């Protein structure tokens, strides 16, 4: 699109205009001299009139008026008898010259006013089109930054500038524009405070070199713009700048409203999640707590009546339930931490062989029959990961399998293309297809009658896999049982090995 401001400069430059005047007059005169043997003075006068009309059509009012006067003078000098003088012999010629001069001046006046109006109309049309384009551009932009950059672009397109567009921050201070002079900042500040256009032709601070325009209405001013050049007589220009600014203000307000609606929705969703979470946590915590309190109070009040075996059973129950509670707490905290600060992963080059080894040394305490068979091939690639989280994921999957199944449990790690896969397979009841996604939701267990508290562990496992850019899913195992498969991408190049 051509610069909107270019329309104002469409005419011919003054030097070229005056040259054109001289050339037109010379051409008409030469033409007259050349035709002199064949035509009368009437035709020669017509040639000058043609030159006047061309000048009136192409040049501005002053140039075409000068051209008209020059043409009449030249006709008089070169062709009206007595020729080669400024004298006029007959009265008829004198009247003709005067009429010709008047006609020429009227033509140039009419032509230049038509031209001025059409130029004006073209400028207005371009401005209208610019407003339309800006409005459609703004309708698909949602952030403050996008609106600001579209607005700056539109101002620079319509006005030579340098134009300035600044917004107010939450503390009603101007954002950015640190390189602006104090005078400009004061102007912007003042126009925001007064919520009115300042500058030439506005009646407010007419001595300024630019227009200062507020964005928004009284009580809801979002920022301000400074536009150059500003001429007192250019009412249309000022109105266009105001129209641009009010369009920007409307869209800024819309963006602000939609942002606040979104944040309210997000907050409502967060509270919803939090309350289901709390309800579920308290359910998962209450049962083991009841066992602990029951066993402890029995020991406290009935110790004398209880046999040694019974006392040991109660103590073991307290220890078991307490360690279960500690796992639930650990999982809950980790899940909350992971979903709230996903970027907080402490990634380093890790070996899954090591992680599996450390997980097994812990999980074997609950695996007295050594049901877990692990298969970790040597020479696995290293993975850039948070080891504590991966250990927690593998540990949860193994403990789940121990809890829900009776037979052997296969843990295997494999490198497949650009990913590492961790699979835990059991021969338990398996997961029904309808439940295969639900079991990863926080606090939703596949089988409500089974052992308590598995739901959170799986939710955490999936969150851990996803935090590493991977996935975790469950499938039915042929021959019965469940297969949990975590896939972790190896998206970073393996580290260089040292030569030592």
């Amino acid at each position: 699109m051509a610069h909107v401001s270019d329309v104002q400069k469409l005419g011919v430059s003054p030097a070229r205009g005056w040259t054109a005047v001289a050339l037109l007059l010379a051409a008409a005169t030469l033409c007259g001299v050349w035709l002199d043997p064949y035509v009368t003075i009437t035709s020669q006068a017509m040639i000058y009139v043609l030159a006047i009309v061309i000048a009136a059509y192409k040049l501005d009012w002053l140039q075409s008026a000068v051209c008209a006067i020059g043409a009449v003078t030249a006709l008089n000098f070169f062709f009206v008898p007595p020729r080669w003088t400024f004298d006029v012999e007959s009265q008829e010629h004198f009247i003709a010259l005067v009429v010709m001069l008047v006609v020429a001046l009227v033509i140039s006046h009419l032509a230049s006013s038509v031209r001025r109006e059409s130029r004006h109309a073209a400028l207005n049309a371009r401005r209208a089109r610019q407003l339309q384009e800006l409005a459609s551009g703004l309708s698909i932009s949602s952030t403050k930054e996008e609106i600001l950059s579209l607005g700056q672009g539109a101002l620079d397109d319509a006005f030579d500038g340098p134009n300035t567009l600044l917004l107010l921050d939450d503390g009603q201070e101007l954002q950015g524009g640190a390189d602006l002079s104090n005078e400009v900042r004061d102007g912007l500040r003042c126009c925001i405070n007064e919520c009115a256009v300042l500058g030439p032709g506005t009646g407010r601070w007419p001595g300024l070199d630019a227009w200062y325009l507020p964005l928004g209405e009284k009580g809801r001013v979002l920022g301000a713009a400074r536009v150059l050049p500003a001429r007192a007589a250019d009412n249309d220009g000022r109105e266009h700048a105001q129209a641009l600014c009010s369009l920007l203000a409307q869209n800024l307000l819309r963006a602000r409203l939609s942002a606040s609606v979104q944040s309210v929705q997000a907050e409502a969703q967060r509270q919803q999640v939090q309350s289901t979470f709390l309800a579920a946590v308290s359910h998962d915590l209450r049962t083991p707590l009841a066992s602990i309190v029951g066993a402890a109070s029995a020991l406290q009040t009935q110790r004398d009546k209880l046999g040694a075996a019974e006392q040991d059973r109660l103590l073991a129950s307290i220890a078991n339930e307490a360690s279960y509670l500690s796992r639930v707490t650990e999982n809950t905290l980790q899940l909350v931490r992971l979903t709230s600060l996903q970027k907080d992963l402490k990634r380093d080059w890790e070996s899954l062989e090591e992680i599996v080894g450390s997980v097994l040394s812990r999980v074997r305490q609950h695996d007295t029959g050594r049901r877990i068979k692990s298969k970790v091939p040597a020479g696995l690639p290293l993975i850039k990961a948070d080891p504590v989280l991966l250990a927690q994921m593998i540990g949860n999957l193994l403990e789940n399998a121990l809890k829900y199944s009776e037979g052997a449990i296969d843990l295997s790690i494999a490198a497949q293309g650009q990913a590492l896969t961790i699979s835990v397979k059991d021969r338990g009841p398996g997961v029904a297809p309808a439940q295969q996604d639900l079991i990863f939701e926080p606090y939703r267990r596949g089988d409500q009658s089974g052992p308590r508290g598995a739901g959170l562990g799986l939710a955490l496992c999936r969150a851990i896999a996803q935090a590493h850019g991977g996935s975790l899913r469950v499938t039915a195992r042929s021959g019965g049982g469940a297969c949990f498969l975590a896939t972790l991408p190896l998206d970073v190049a393996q580290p260089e090995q040292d030569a030592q």
Partner: protein
Amino acid sequence: MTLRVLVVEDDHEIRSLMQSSLSVEGFEVQTAVSLSEARALLRHKAPDLIVLDLGLPDGDGVQLVHEIRKQHATPVIVVSARYQETLKIELLDAGADDYLTKPFSVGELLARMRVALRHRGTSLAAAVTQHQLEDLSVDLTTRTVQLAGETVHLTPTEFKLLARLVRSAGRVVTHRQLLTDVWGPEFTEHTHYLRLYMAQLRAKIERDPGEPRHLLTETGVGYRLADV
């Protein structure tokens, strides 16, 4: 001679639990609820071992470990919650001897204390030069490593790594400490060296490298050579 233990812990229940279980084991137990109280007690008389809880009301345990290390070789065992990994590593690097993650059993605490006290004794006497556990035996003076009587051949770097762990047998050694001591201080970020060399070492001295018996991984913190 009764060994004196200073327990720095702000939680009343855990403090009194530690006090009673350590007293039963024959330790003389002093307790402090804050860093400032711990400092006051340390000025009075240095204990034989300090159990330091992270997350004290009046500040950072790291500062206290630095202060202790300036004056005493007293072993320090750090007690922390699982999510305090970074702080834990910072304390170990600052000179703490070992750590325990809450919740822990009294048995675990006593085992760690025994290891820490043994190292204190030997560090005052002579450096550890021999290690023997089950079928593995390491002699640093003759540079020999044997597995079930068979000599195991290690590369110089593998041996340096194992030797570093032998000198702290039973205690955790952080990644940073291992990288600094084996490769040099400019290699502290090269964790992948450790992963690769530990895998090679395990392949040579472990019966089942997937479930190591000797070279234990302290996930996210470092390694420990099993000692019991």
